[in-house]
């Protein structure tokens, strides 16, 4: 199978498949039906023609007689008036056994000369299908008889009728037959179409509901579905419910891990500051604890990022930003940072709520640490799809050019005196670039301070 053949096959909708299959079957069935009916009708009409011809032949036989000279004669009034009307379409001829013409009906005179086939067996009517010199078609019946008088005379009686009436009859039947068959096919296909529409409606509904879920307008499939689909839709719902619970459990496990690891670290760190600990040891231990903590923190944060999941409800950006504003206003209360938050109305993030809060929280917190008074956030859609770009800048001193490439790499920070574990931007970069396939860029903003731009 060629790849092209495959794609065409896969691209056909269920409706198209059913329509094509039904059309082929219906055409074959109705075609054969039509042919059979057509042939049956023709045969029966032909049998009628033959019977009529036979009646005429016998009538002529009855009317004919031998005169005293033992010549075959016919009365003035022939049994069928049409034999007497020239060109009437009904003709009779009698040949002698030798083939010589004995008699012709007046209807034939001067009009036609029919190429009758000789009939050899006596008493058996032979049906003939003739065409004259002008191409007109005739059905004929020949009957060979032997006339017993003083001598015996052999004659062949022929009666021929032009096929016009028969042809017209068959044509009329055919037209009616095929007309009805085509009409029936159209009606049947239309009815089939409606049945499929009705039958496939649940599938269309599933597709619509899935789209609704992706758009965030509903959380699971609501409609009741026929039994064939129910297993699928119920499992899908279970999957949707389960996924949230699973992520929650996973994050709880990570939180427990963080707790069981970092609380002892906190104890050690406090113990280092104890006056009894020798000074050289203090520096060494502090450094080691710091390094250990940074690694754990970074790995935990990275592990907690979930990334985009299919069928996930998109997250509104504005509420997340507002929540963080309230949080950061408390954390940096002494600084009295002024936030200017410009989020495009209705902007949505296609990903995990926790990841968005983590990205925005770290970037905004960083800006608050460096800002003198003002932090500006701008978030807007980017490109045609679901992408968005978030810019955060502050009016602080900005990022020196020489450390810029290193910032956001694991554990690097511009000023170790300013709080935090130095993993904030590293985590953001990891989530943005590693998990979401986006981009993070550092620059200088219009306020003169650092500008962090994130594409998601």
């Amino acid at each position, binding site marked *: 199978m060629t790849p092209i053949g495959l794609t065409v096959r896969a691209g056909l909708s269920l409706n198209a498949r059913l329509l094509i299959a039904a059309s082929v079957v219906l055409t074959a069935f109705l075609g054969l039906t039509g042919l059979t009916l057509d042939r049956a009708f023709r045969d029966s009409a032909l049998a009628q023609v033959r019977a009529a011809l036979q009646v005429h032949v016998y009538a002529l036989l009855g009317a004919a007689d031998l005169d005293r000279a033992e010549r075959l004669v016919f009365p003035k009034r022939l049994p069928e008036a049409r034999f007497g009307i020239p060109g009437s379409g009904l003709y009779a001829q009698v040949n002698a056994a030798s083939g010589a013409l004995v008699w012709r009906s007046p209807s034939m005179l001067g009009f036609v000369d029919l190429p009758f086939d000789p009939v050899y067996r006596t008493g058996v009517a032979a049906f003939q299908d003739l065409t004259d010199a002008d191409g007109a078609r005739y059905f004929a019946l020949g009957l060979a008889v032997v006339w017993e008088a003083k001598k015996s005379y052999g004659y062949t009686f022929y009666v021929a009728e032009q096929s016009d009436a028969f042809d017209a009859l068959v044509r009329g039947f055919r037209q009616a037959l095929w007309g009805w068959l085509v009409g029936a096919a159209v009606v049947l296909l239309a009815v089939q179409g409606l049945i499929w529409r009705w039958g496939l409606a649940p599938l269309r509904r599933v597709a619509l509901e899935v789209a609704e879920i992706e758009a965030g307008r509903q959380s699971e499939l609501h409609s009741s579905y026929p039994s064939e689909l129910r297993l699928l839709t119920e499992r899908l719902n279970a999957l949707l419910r389960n996924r949230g619970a699973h992520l929650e459990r996973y*994050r709880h496990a990570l*939180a*427990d891990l*963080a*707790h*069981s*690891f*970092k*609380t*002892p*670290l*906190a*104890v*050690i*760190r*406090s*113990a280092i*500051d104890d006056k009894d600990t020798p000074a050289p040891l203090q520096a060494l231990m502090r450094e080691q*604890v710091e390094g250990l*903590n940074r690694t754990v*923190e970074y790995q*935990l*944060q990275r592990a*907690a990022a979930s990334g985009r999941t299919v069928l996930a409800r998109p997250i509104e950006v504005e509420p997340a930003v507002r*929540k*963080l504003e*309230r*949080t950061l206003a*408390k*954390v940096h*209360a*002494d600084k*009295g940072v002024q936030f200017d938050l410009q989020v495009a109305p209705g902007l949505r993030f296609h990903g995990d*709520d*926790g990841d968005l*809060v*983590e990205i*925005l*929280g*770290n970037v905004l*917190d960083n800006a608050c640490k460096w800002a003198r008074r003002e932090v500006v956030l701008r978030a807007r859609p980017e490109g045609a799809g679901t992408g968005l770009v978030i810019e955060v800048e502050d009016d602080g001193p900005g990022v020196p050019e020489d450390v810029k490439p290193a910032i956001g790499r694991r554990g690097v920070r511009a000023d170790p005196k300013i*709080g935090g*574990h130095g993993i904030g931007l590293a985590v953001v970069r990891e989530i943005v670039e590693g998990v979401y396939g986006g981009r993070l860029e550092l620059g200088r903003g219009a306020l003169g301070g650092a500008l962090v731009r994130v594409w998601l």
Partner: protein
Amino acid sequence: MRALVVEDEAPLREQLAERLRVEGYVVDLAADGEEGAFIGRDYPVDLAIVDLGLPKLPGIEVIRRWREAGLCFPVLILTARGRWQDKVEGLGVGADDYLVKPFEMEELLARLRALVRRAAGFANPVLTFGSLALDTRAECVRVEGAAVELTAFEYRILEYLMLHAGEVISKTELAEHLYHEDQDHDSNVLEVMLARLRRKLDPERLLNPIETLRGRGYRFRLLKSSGPSV
């Protein structure tokens, strides 16, 4: 200052208690959420340090219960959870600050001082009343720009009175915030301390920053100055 520490890890709890006591705080300890919620509700706590992952009742719930009961002492969350969603949730239910473990003890102390000061309505870390200035960051007191040597206990008395400037503070209230119930204390000791504090601050008896209202208590009577000064 009376500090409540709600932390289930015994070694860390003890370390915190020890250090806070050295700094002159009266320390209450709780090893689980329910006990913490109870102490915070029934004792005159000035600030609380709360872990999030607590047995019996989660830290978030403890804070929520306090806030629902109308208690508004400052709360600092001290937790291993470093995710911003946890921070947003914690500060959302009414905590005032958030510190991730492991932490620098000095940073914790600095944040506690800032929380107490802000809770009393002072935006500036230096509380200035006329010529008297109390620097909450350095924990030092200056009169007319000259440093005054105070013991940790004397500093706590002055800090408490200044943070509640203009209010009448009964001797019982002062004792509650400066002594633990278990501690044996004599109200005479408090009077002696106050007399010594007055002497140190105001040797000439010109300022009289702390007045005694007989039978009712004490009041810091200087007026708050606006603008920073050291």
